[in-house]
């Protein structure tokens, strides 16, 4: 399902949640939407799921018009909202049967599609959904969203609160789903997951700031970025943030990443770090990752 979003805006009263967003989501892509809380991700997803009609603009999903063909289109969409829409007092099996019956299908009919994920929860099929762990609930919710073999799968922060191992397994499942030809749109606060998408869009305050293959985005990013090692992270962060030539400084695992003015040559930039010689173990120029890019784009917007 090729999705074409043209000049979409959406307002809730005086609040504009989306501002003239243009986006094409190619058929068969694993499309990531990233952005801070309140940037418009969930509004965009609700529009894609035909749950709300945008205040302005047009959207087409495959050959369907989202308003006129809404009912037919809904049969082609699987939607997993942020708070999983499971019936907590029904068992795993009953939840699946319920979603299957809504879409006029059965668990057996599309078993092959959900097999990889369902196998992991099948041992607990008699257990009530409310008694499952977070990772299990997420797998059940994915099974329910896939039960009718939709052409478009919409996942709103499916891995929030999920541990590092379960997250990897979940994304392995998304790779399998993509191979089945299902177009998937997914939002995530984890930047390692954004790198696994075929394309990402970065939303900020209702506007689209960037949209491309995540690898190309990081390769073409122009950030004068340095990795600093120090034993006094909290103190040195405060110092860097006061420096005129430093755009931003944040912790990154065991290092600190510091973005300095683009105009500075390597020699000039390293002089900044020489000033903090007694607190710094090492400082070296590095290439930005997707998380650096996210920070850089959103910090620029905050300053404007």
């Amino acid at each position, binding site marked *: 399902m090729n999705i074409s979003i043209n000049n979409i805006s959406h307002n809730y009263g005086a609040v504009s949640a989306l501002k003239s967003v243009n986006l094409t989501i190619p058929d068969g892509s694993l499309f990531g939407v990233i952005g*801070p809380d309140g940037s418009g991700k969930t509004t965009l997803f609700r529009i894609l799921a035909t749950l709300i009609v945008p205040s302005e603009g047009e959207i087409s999903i495959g050959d369907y018009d989202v308003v006129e063909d809404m009912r037919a289109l809904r049969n082609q969409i699987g939607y997993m909202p942020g708070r999983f829409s499971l019936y907590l007092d029904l068992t795993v099996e009953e939840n699946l049967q319920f979603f299957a019956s809504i879409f006029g299908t059965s668990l057996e009919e599309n078993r092959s599609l959900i097999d990889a994920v369902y196998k992991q929860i099948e041992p607990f099929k008699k257990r009530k959904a409310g008694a499952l762990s977070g*990772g299990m609930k997420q797998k059940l919710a994915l099974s329910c969203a896939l039960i009718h073999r939709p052409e478009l799968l919409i996942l709103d922060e499916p891995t929030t*609160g999920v541990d590092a191992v379960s997250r990897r397994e979940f994304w392995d499942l998304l790779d399998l789903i993509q191979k089945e030809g299902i177009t998937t749109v997914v939002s995530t*606060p984890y930047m390692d997951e954004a790198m696994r998408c075929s394309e990402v869009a970065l939303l900020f305050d209702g506007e689209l700031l960037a949209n491309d293959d995540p690898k190309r985005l990081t390769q073409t990013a122009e950030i004068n970025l340095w990795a600093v090692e120090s034993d006094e992270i909290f103190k040195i962060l405060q110092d860097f943030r006061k420096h005129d030539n430093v755009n931003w400084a944040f912790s990154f695992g*065991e290092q600190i990443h510091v973005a300095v003015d683009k105009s500075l040559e390597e020699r000039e930039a390293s002089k900044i770090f020489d000033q903090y010689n007694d607190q710094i173990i090492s400082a070296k120029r590095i290439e930005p990752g997707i998380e650096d890019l996210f*920070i850089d784009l959103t910090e620029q917007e905050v300053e404007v």
Partner: protein
Amino acid sequence: MSIVSVKNLTKKFGSFTAVDSISFEVDKGKIFGFLGANGAGKTTAMKMLIGLLAPTSGQATVAGFDVASEPESIRKRIGYMSQKFSLYEDLTVRENIRFYGGIYGLTDEEIDQASDKIVEELDLQESRKTLVASLPLGWKQKLAFSVASVHNPDIIFLDEPTGGVDPVTRRRFWDRIYQSADQGVTVFVTTHYMDEAEYCDRVSIMVEGRIEALGSPNELKTEYTADTMDDLFVQLVRSQ
């Protein structure tokens, strides 16, 4: 000096052992990362440490008090911020501070002082009469942290404080954690972001109710020949 001291702490629910004889110490003023997969027993262990759940066996003291026999005393000396932030959405910023100050037995004067300090620190002057429901997530999160420490606790427990939060907002939250540790407050934190594990002075990793690894991030990476905490975590959890 240890502010948390845990020895063979165990919790069973019927025949299921949720926490299986864990032992560790947390030093005062340090940041301790309490890691583990979903369902590994972290929340159950944390509930015992804050005096909400009685252990089946073993001992633990927090801020000098025994978790089994003195849970009331513990609750006065600790702060706790749950995943869902425990703020009242239909109260204003100031009313939330006043409410929690009251619960912890602060005098009106102390509450006013604390309230002014929090509002100033978080730069919330213009929003102090705003309902919490309409604050952005990043502010709610910082306010929840401040409210949980309104009574100057010795240690603050944070249960996945940065879940679902974007890269900038969660780093700003960690600035706040560093600041507290700098002022001598001990921080006990759970997270699923493995880069955040690197910011801790020491971490433990729970797998199926047991602590499988315990030490500073650098010690553990050396011990398990892993490049990052993420690699280490995956290695430990997958080996089960």
